[in-house]
């Protein structure tokens, strides 16, 4: 292994070091082990994967713009990780259940999360945007790595029920350093849990290169925990689909967990609050630009005779409509009622919170009631501030 096998961020990305079915140039590489798993993916199916990726890329751009325009508080862009997310999520059944981090908008798209549902939490309008049981997808997790254990527990439950569904834990390269992720590997192996650990190694954890988290390709972590590890070109949607199908199939058949490392790249900032120029070079961006997940699919489709200009056009239109819908949706997200701040803390009545709620309701009512003005000092303040409420 020579330094030249490593890219700017220090990890191995030579094609022979991961599963790759489509080269960056769009050539179909044959792989005896993984080809059978995507034998059904004809041009039409591949076109659909392209469509998914193009749409989520467009939605992501739109959301970033919405954040810049003040419509969202924050947005963590997925740009660059479309293949990893679409390829894996399109391998799922409806009755599978996914636990993600905050960047998996592409996964959410595949799970049928609607535009308003997607943006709610980033707009700061509510604690979450969708009912997990309607989408087969947990609400996003911000504590790095915590969801890996949730996915494992969920899968243990599936196994104990005798279900052949599976769960998937999505997390990043940085997350592999958290205790929770490692403990999840321990539990999953111990209980043969039908869970897929899907690690998007996008080379960075905010400003920290993956080489700081691990000197080893992350997929190699798996073996020591007693499960297969697959390292896949995360910018190759076909390879990701194949690898995820392999892992899900194993899970369904009682074979236990699999760890997938999808080697990909975050093109944009960590979030809209981040300035990646402070920690990474343009060269790196240029290099990863040559490995774009979308262009290679178009090239492959073109080579197999598809009219990709037409496809691109159609999909661009559709993506544009989706983006417009997103833009509309954001304004339809209702602002929360003040008193809803107390909702759902508990599932059952709670005397302490009920009292606190009552107090606050009466406090707020002081401002409504013209006759009964707030107590003198606070009235003074309210005037001084121009009646903030």
């Amino acid at each position, binding site marked *: 292994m020579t330094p030249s096998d490593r890219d700017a961020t220090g990890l191995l990305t030579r094609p022979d070091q991961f599963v790759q079915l489509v080269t960056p140039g769009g050539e179909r590489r044959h792989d005896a082990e993984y080809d059978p798993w995507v034998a059904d993916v004809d041009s039409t199916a591949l076109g659909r994967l392209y469509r998914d990726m193009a749409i989520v890329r467009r939605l992501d751009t739109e959301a970033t713009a919405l954040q810049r325009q003040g419509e969202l508080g924050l947005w963590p862009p997925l740009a660059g990780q479309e293949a990893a997310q679409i390829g894996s999520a399109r391998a799922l059944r409806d009755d599978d*259940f996914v636990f993600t981090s905050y960047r998996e908008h592409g996964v959410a798209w595949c799970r049928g999360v609607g535009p308003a549902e997607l943006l709610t939490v980033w707009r700061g309008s*509510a*604690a979450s945007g969708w009912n997990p049981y309607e989408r087969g997808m947990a609400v996003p997790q911000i504590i790095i790595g915590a969801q890996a254990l949730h996915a494992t527990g969920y899968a243990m439950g599936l196994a104990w029920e005798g279900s052949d569904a599976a769960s998937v834990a999505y997390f990043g390269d940085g997350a592999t350093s958290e205790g929770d992720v490692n403990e999840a590997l321990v539990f999953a192996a111990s209980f043969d849990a039908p869970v897929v650990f899907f690690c998007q190694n996008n080379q960075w954890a905010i400003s920290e290169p993956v080489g700081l988290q691990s000197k080893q390709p992350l997929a190699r972590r798996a073996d020591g925990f007693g499960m297969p590890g697959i390292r896949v070109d995360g910018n190759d949607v076909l390879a990701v689909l194949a690898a995820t199908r392999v892992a899900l199939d194993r899970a369904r058949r009682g074979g236990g967990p699999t760890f997938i490392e999808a080697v990909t790249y975050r093109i944009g900032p960590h979030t809209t609050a981040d300035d990646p120029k402070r920690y990474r070079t343009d060269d790196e961006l240029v290099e990863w630009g040559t490995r774009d997940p979308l262009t290679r699919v178009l090239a492959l489709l073109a080579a197999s005779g598809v009219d990709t200009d037409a496809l691109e056009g159609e999909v661009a239109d559709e993506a544009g409509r989706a983006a417009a819908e997103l833009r509309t949706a954001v304004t339809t997200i209702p602002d929360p009622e003040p008193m809803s701040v107390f909702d759902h803390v508990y599932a059952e009545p709670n*005397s302490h919170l009920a009292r606190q709620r009552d107090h606050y309701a009466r406090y707020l009512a002081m401002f409504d009631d013209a006759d009964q003005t707030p107590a003198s000092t606070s009235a003074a303040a309210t005037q001084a501030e121009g009646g903030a409420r």
Partner: protein
Amino acid sequence: MTTLTLAKALNAGLRRALAGDDKVVLMGEDIGTLGGVFRVTDGLKAEFGAHRVVDTPLSEAGILGTAVGLAYRGFRPVVEIQFDGFIYPGFDQIVAQVAKLHYRSRGNVRMPLTIRVPFGGGIGAAEHHSESPEAYFAHTAGLRVVACSDPADAYVMIQQAIAGDDPVLFFEPKRRYHVRGDVDETASLADARPLGVASLVASGSDVTLVTYGALVQTARDAAIAAAEDGVSIEVIDLRSLAPVDYPTVEASVRRTGRLVIAHEAGQQGGVGAELAASITERCFEFLEAAPVRVTGHDIPYPPAKLERHHLPDLDRILDGVDRALGRPNSLSGVEA
């Protein structure tokens, strides 16, 4: 009525919960084959199988985090933390996940976990085996925190905790595991005192003494000792530490005008602080003296040979009563 130890009463309650709802699963270290280091889960794995009473790998975050996933799937996990001092590696899962997921999911996901924690000292144990971490959880929105003190309550409360839809930190007074008491195993949960309600364990008129867990017995003893001296102590077993049953405590303090709170945990920011502050807010006009706290010191739990100089005992509680009464020779007379 059966006579059971507190540990056996919990065992009986767990058995009934397991039998009554097949979504109830017990998880923890050494709870299966061994039956738990205190034998609270003794025999349950044999009876219900390894998927209902689950020996887990050695990781508290792992146990709690997978329990969250199981709850997502509709299970009602009952987690045993082997000793109080081992709960902290799982703290993030409790505080950031278990406590917040119902809120985060806007009520869509329930977290009916019961987290059993043998707590408190007085057993001559090694470090980390005698702690009282309840205040951390009482300060955490989204959790309920309860402590049982005798076999009858233990039997009922563990079932109520499991049946409830909110996560419950369930503190068990480990030094009283072997104390016996009558338990009505046929009683229905519906008729039982609700989980959030305190219990008046001794009536009195001079001072209200509030405590929970292992110190309830000490408080009873204190009431008896004080009675001989003509002081009438009303003893309240708090049972629920979050939320606190204030109506019961308030009613008593309005009558006695004096409040003593006892717990093993340190004073600074302990459950007694909230209780003193809240009762002062609610009953200021009725208080004849500042509420008095009799607590462990604000030190790491000391080595076994020093624990009697840390834990509130009969004497220290009675000294607290004296202070609340402003009696001569008590510490209340000393200018700090």
